């Protein structure tokens, strides 16, 4: 008995402490070191966290490169599978599309109404900031369902942010590094979120199973009825992290143990791009929105004013030009008028001169004639002592002369 115990101790000692030819570290030393790491990690030691962040950055990148061949195999496998299912899915989709189109109109109205009502009760409604991220690594072991996204604290990603695939909820951010972040999927065993089951509005908790589905927990049997089968699961918004009404999945089946299984709308194995966002209360957001809108409006008004001013200036310049052109025209017209007037004047003057000259000539001729006539007929018109004729130089005298004497004058 003692001998076998000794053998065991010797073997253990040799296993722990004996360094083999190629071993640099002893097993015991490394085990103690890993235990220290575990203990410090459980106590949330800052140094361990920093080491973890540094290791994360390096490992995620190298893991991305190394898993390229595996990803290729995975993609090929999935694509092949999809090709086989392609025709069936096409048929299904055709029927679904018809139904959805008819429902779409009703939905649009319901969404608008819902938004209006939610804003009244200050629900978590408004998306604060939305970041699109690429999935780098999607290692989903049976014990952990999480993925790595290529956005980190550098891109304002914060712990607890919501992750969506299209409009469907995928999970939340649980770890943020500088350029990467880890997203805990809804299917993870440790994921528990408050949900509403519609129709009926039953409140419950959705818990991941570590596989590709989830289960509804903490629900009384009274609430399980015919409506529960094939019902849709949405986030309830309790807890404040998620906005109420984000679609998650459909109830798949209820087994004998009354375990309600939920299949997700989004296929977590096919995630390539996701939206990472957070929600803020409508009130605070609305204020900011109003501020932003006011700023935007003032900017728009300022721009419009600038435009108007520029237009006014342009118009004024045009008007000035037009005025200047009109003035020039008027001036030109006036000049033309003046010239014409001057010409007319000159013509008139010329005419009058001609007339005057003609008159003068006539007068001269008349005077010549008059003188000639005066010589001849002055005796017949000139006043003398004994006749009652006209004084020399009077108009009567002149008339008399021109009429060749008093006789003709009388005639």
């Amino acid at each position, binding site marked *: 008995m003692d001998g076998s115990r000794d053998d065991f101790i010797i073997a253990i000692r040799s296993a722990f402490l004996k360094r083999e030819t190629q*071993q640099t570290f002893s097993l015991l030393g490394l085990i103690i070191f890993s235990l220290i790491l575990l203990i410090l990690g459980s106590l949330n030691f800052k140094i361990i966290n920093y080491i973890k962040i540094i290791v994360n950055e390096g490992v995620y990148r190298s893991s991305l490169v190394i898993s390229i061949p595996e990803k290729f195999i995975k993609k090929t496998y999935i694509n092949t599978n999809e090709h086989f299912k392609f025709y069936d899915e096409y048929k299904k989709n055709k029927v679904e599309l018809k139904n959805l189109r008819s429902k779409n109109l009703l939905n649009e109205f319901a969404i608008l109404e819902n938004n209006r009502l939610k804003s009244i009760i200050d629900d978590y409604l408004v998306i604060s900031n939305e970041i699109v991220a690429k999935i780098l690594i999607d290692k989903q072991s049976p014990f952990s369902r999480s993925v790595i996204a290529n956005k980190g604290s550098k891109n304002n990603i914060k712990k607890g942010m919501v992750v969506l695939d299209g409009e469907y909820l995928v999970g939340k951010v649980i770890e943020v590094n500088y350029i990467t972040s880890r997203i805990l999927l809804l299917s993870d065993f440790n994921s528990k979120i408050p949900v509403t089951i519609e129709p009926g509005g039953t409140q419950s908790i959705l818990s991941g199973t570590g596989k590709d589905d989830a289960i509804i927990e903490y629900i009384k049997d009274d609430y399980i009825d015919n409506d529960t089968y094939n019902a849709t699961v949405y986030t309830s918004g309790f807890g404040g992290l998620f906005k109420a009404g984000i679609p998650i999945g459909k109830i798949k089946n209820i087994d004998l143990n009354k375990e309600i299984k939920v299949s997700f709308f989004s296929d977590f194995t096919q995630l390539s791009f996701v939206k990472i966002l957070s929600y803020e209360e409508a009130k605070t957001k609305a204020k900011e929105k109003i501020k932003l809108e006011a700023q935007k409006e003032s900017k728009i008004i300022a721009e419009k004013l600038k435009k108007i001013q520029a237009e006014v200036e342009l118009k004024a310049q045009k008007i000035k030009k037009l005025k200047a052109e009109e003035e020039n025209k008027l001036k030109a017209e006036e000049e033309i008028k003046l010239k014409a007037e001057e010409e007319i004047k000159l013509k008139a003057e010329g005419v009058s001169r001609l007339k005057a000259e003609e008159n003068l000539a006539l007068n001269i001729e008349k005077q010549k004639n008059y003188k000639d006539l005066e010589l001849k007929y002055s005796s017949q018109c000139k006043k003398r002592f004994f006749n009652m004729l006209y004084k020399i130089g009077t108009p009567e005298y002149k008339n008399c002369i021109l009429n060749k004497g008093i006789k003709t004058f009388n005639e």
Partner: protein
Amino acid sequence: MNEISKQSLVKKILLNAPIIVLFISVLSNFDFNYLDLDYFSFNFIHILIFYCGLKKNINLGYGLIFLAGLINDTVINLPIGLSSLSYLLICVSAAYLRTITLRPSLSKDIIYFLVTILVVNSISYTLLNLIFSITTEYKDLLINVFFTFLLYFVFANLFKLYEIKILRRSDV
């Protein structure tokens, strides 16, 4: 000259193949989860470490195993140090078996491997649940252990082939 250096490079790669495979496995977390098989999962790294721990001929240092554990923890988001501890415990078990065994046989190894991975996974499960409050499905863990145990036979034979054909060992 160039041919000689090429040959030596290939030889180096082949000699260090277990290390390369180990790091590729932890970095890519090599599994077949995308097959969507509900009741199938196995831990290749456990098989590799146990086999290499049993054989003196294969070049796989404890330091590298420790480092691989740290990387695995980072990739699958486990508390840092947990996988390292599991891997090293497997190494301890393999070293112990190697010391006490005079005439190695695959059947004995497989049984011993089953006990080892059961103990190691129990320790990990306990640490995860009790200290770190991280819930894991016990059923999944058992399925993983079961398939790892079954596939040990397949991989052990493959590694044997590697030893005979590539490392040119006759004492396997």
